[in-house]
């Protein structure tokens, strides 16, 4: 044995798990992270367009809330993100990594668009109901497949759902070619532009009021379902430990399949919102990466619907604001994705400081002497 008796210095900083943290401290840390993120974003925008940070945020604010129309578009997109987050919540609570929201949205969107195209003659309310159901079923199916294989053979759900995204994407590409209008444009174009069949009707004079009502209703129902229903209890137990669930007499496979179907169905409804409540068309960018963003929203909010609204609002504000900056300076819209990424890095990273605390060397010595 080598006797390497070096005089070791104690490490400068050690980490220890926090026992508890006051709520104001936790939110203080999150607030600092948020401010940090906004500063970094401002610095980057300044580096690119040389606009002073205050003006940057003024412009962003105008981009998101500047006019009534913009405000409603921001709200609409927020609701969209919230809807997907609500859909993902039960799957994540079950510790099932459904990263297939993108595909489930597209599946719902295809179903909605198909109803609009082929059933455009049905009376308004009935058509909307049919579209709602069909998109939920389509999205549900997209969640059902990976759910079944996970339940039966424990097939890796992360990659399964991911691949299902691309299958849905190619399906959309197929239907775009099929429904192309006008010919040769490689686009579906606005569906039913004259009859507006299958479009969300304006409520209280607002085009997107129905989106808000629908999503908030879904969010409320999901909250109650997860918190108070027996099925919600089962989801929580399965998520914690499959062994415990078996012990409690819960049939784990059927809970997995049921929950994934529900999760997919709500994401499918998000696809219905895109087609019927927003764009009135379908394209391969109908989901536009929101399925992935919503995963982070749902996870960060720890399935708390209220927090989900906050985070979704923040992200959509950044997105709209960044797009405004981009259009003023003739840059492309991807700047919004970049900024969103930075913000998320900060929020994800700051959770560490809530879970753990740092103990510095000097402090420790003082403690020891005391």
């Amino acid at each position, binding site marked *: 044995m080598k006797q390497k008796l070096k005089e070791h210095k104690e490490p400068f900083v050690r980490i220890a798990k926090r026992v508890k943290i006051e709520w104001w401290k936790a939110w203080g840390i999150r607030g600092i992270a948020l401010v940090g993120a906004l500063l970094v974003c401002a610095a980057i925008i300044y580096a690119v367009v040389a606009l002073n940070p205050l003006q940057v945020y003024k412009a962003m604010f105008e981009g998101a809330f500047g006019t009534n129309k913009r405000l409603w578009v921001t709200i609409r997109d927020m609701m969209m993100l919230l809807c997907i987050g609500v859909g993902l919540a039960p799957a994540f609570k079950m510790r099932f990594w459904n990263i297939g929201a993108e595909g489930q949205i597209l599946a719902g969107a295809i179903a909605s668009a198909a109803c609009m195209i082929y059933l455009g003659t049905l009376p308004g309310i009935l058509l909307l109901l049919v579209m709602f159901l069909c998109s939920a079923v389509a999205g549900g199916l997209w969640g059902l497949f990976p759910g079944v294989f996970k339940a039966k053979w424990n097939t890796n759900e992360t990659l399964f759902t991911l691949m299902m995204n691309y299958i849905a994407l190619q399906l959309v590409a197929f239907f775009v070619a099929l429904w192309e209008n006008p010919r040769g444009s490689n686009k579906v174009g606005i569906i039913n532009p004259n009859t507006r069949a299958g479009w969300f009707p304006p409520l209280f004079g607002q085009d997107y009021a129905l989106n808000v009502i629908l999503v908030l209703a879904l969010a409320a129902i999901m909250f109650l379902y997860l918190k108070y229903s027996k099925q919600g209890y089962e989801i929580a137990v399965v998520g914690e430990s499959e062994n415990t669930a078996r012990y409690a007499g819960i049939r784990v496979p059927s809970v997995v399949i049921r929950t994934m179907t529900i999760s997919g169905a709500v994401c499918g409804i998000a696809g219905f919102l895109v087609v019927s409540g927003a764009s009135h068309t379908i394209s391969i960018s109908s989901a536009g990466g929101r399925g992935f*963003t919503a995963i982070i929203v749902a996870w960060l909010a720890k399935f708390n619907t209220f927090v989900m609204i906050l985070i979704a609002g923040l992200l959509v504000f950044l997105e709209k604001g960044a797009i405004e900056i981009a259009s003023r300076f003739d840059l492309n819209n*991807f700047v919004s994705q970049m900024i969103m990424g930075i913000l998320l890095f900060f929020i994800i990273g700051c959770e560490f400081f809530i879970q753990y605390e740092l103990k510095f060397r000097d402090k420790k010595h003082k403690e020891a002497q005391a």
Partner: protein
Amino acid sequence: MSLDSLLALLQAAIVFGTVILFGSVGEILTEKSGNLNLGVPGIMYLGGIAGLVGAFFYEMNNPNPVPILCLVIALGCAIAAAVAGAAIFGLLTITLRANQNVAGLTLTIFSGGVANFFGGSLNRLAGGVGQISVSATSAVFRANIPVLRDIPIVGKLLFSHGFMVYLSLILAFAVSWFLKRTSVGLNLRAVGENPATADAAGINVTKYKYLATCIGGGITGLGGLYYVMDYIKGTWANDYTIESLGWLAVALVIFASWRPTRAIWGAYLFGVLFWLYLYINGLSRGTKELFKMLPYVVTIGWLIIVSLRRSRENQPPASLGLSYFREER
């Protein structure tokens, strides 16, 4: 199918496969340390755009670019950016112990934004017009040996490619050898299997995780560079192809059951499946799109088969996806 079109298919498959092979080999190295980095598409984005930007500025400022400098600059930029991306992921998951899935997805969102933003706006920011193009650098990346290339059949199949195709193969074998035969490779495998054990054996878990993640990220980034320089010949396209290739690379890791050498034929198989639709006659535009699903459908099929067989040796590293804290009680 004629011989010519078969050759063309295989050739295209190798080009396609090389992109995801880089991604897979890098990700295998990363995952062997227990880090599941879903930021592979993002890191490929970063590698691609950084290589492109580096070459772009070099070519813009030098009317007669020196080939070797083109190469060094593009490679250097790509690797540096990819390692930086992986380091962000490492910081979040290893030091800050964030959830790996979430951190990886965020990295992909962020890097996709960065890459497409610069890819789309760079020319304008630099005061030019139109698309970026780095023809000189791309030519270096696509250079091959004239004599060998002209050998019938074999030449076209094996020697018509740029050097990065061979680099990807060398890396795959090298990583495989590293994991199997070296002491450091053994330690790395232990870190991914059981970090507490590795720690108790005196292995610096944090250091290994960081190094594996960053080096793996560097290799992954080369996939993006190859895509930009060879696959689309030194331009940029905001069409999300890199992203889908990146996800296929992640899937290929499972397909290859964490063995780099097995990833080689898997990568080329994916290439064949992806391009097959071009070589089947009588497909309409719509059905072509359906055909493009093949690699994804096959991946799902393989996932199911793997889960049915459940052999002890084909399992992921046991602690994959979990963060490690020594004083966890």
